[in-house]
């Protein structure tokens, strides 16, 4: 019933057994977290658990919202960002966690 993950031994000797191990490699790195309600977080991953509750540092939160222009009926997409020094994120709003962004 439960899929047995093939152990993948990376060249640096870290054993990958389950999906959460990918996040383990990202501890103390800047990660991208996509959340529910069009919220995105970028911050340094300090801690997480099996629920994906997380503690992030130096967080930048981006909230994307769209409203309709009353005259033209066009959809206007606006982004608001804010910065938080240290943030605990409850796991149930987390959609995806992506390892450090090597680009940009």
């Amino acid at each position, binding site marked *: 019933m*439960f899929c*047995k*993950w093939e152990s993948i031994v990376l060249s640096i000797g870290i*054993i990958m*057994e*389950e999906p*959460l*191990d990918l996040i*383990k490699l990202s*501890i*103390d790195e800047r990660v991208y977290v996509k959340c529910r309600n069009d919220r995105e977080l970028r911050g340094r991953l*300090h*801690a*997480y*658990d*099996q629920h994906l*509750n997380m*503690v992030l*540092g130096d967080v930048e939160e981006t909230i994307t919202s769209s409203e309709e222009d009353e005259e033209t009926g066009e959809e206007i997409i606006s982004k608001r960002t804010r910065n*938080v*020094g*240290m*943030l*605990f*994120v*409850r796991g*149930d*709003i987390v959609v995806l966690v992506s390892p450090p962004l090597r680009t940009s």
Partner: protein
Amino acid sequence: MTLVGKEIAVELKNDVVLTGTLHSVDQYLNIKLTTVQVVNQERYPQLTVLKNCFIRGSVVRYVQINPGDVNTELLQDATRKENSPAVGGTVSEAKK
């Protein structure tokens, strides 16, 4: 390391933000706050009378913490330990 007694801001899933002193937390991450103040009082006048409150863990979105109240090195080590298969075994191993 505990945040009990420290000043925190709890952001709920309905966008209400409550600041206060952390009195206690339990296994469900239910939170008891003392000396509560609601941020954006004009929008939530009914909440201005709150002094102490209990917050059900499931309605919490974020908890904003003062970075100085957290030892990040300790957190990272504890996370690595908790999620390492060698100590105590992972959840997936327990199911096998």
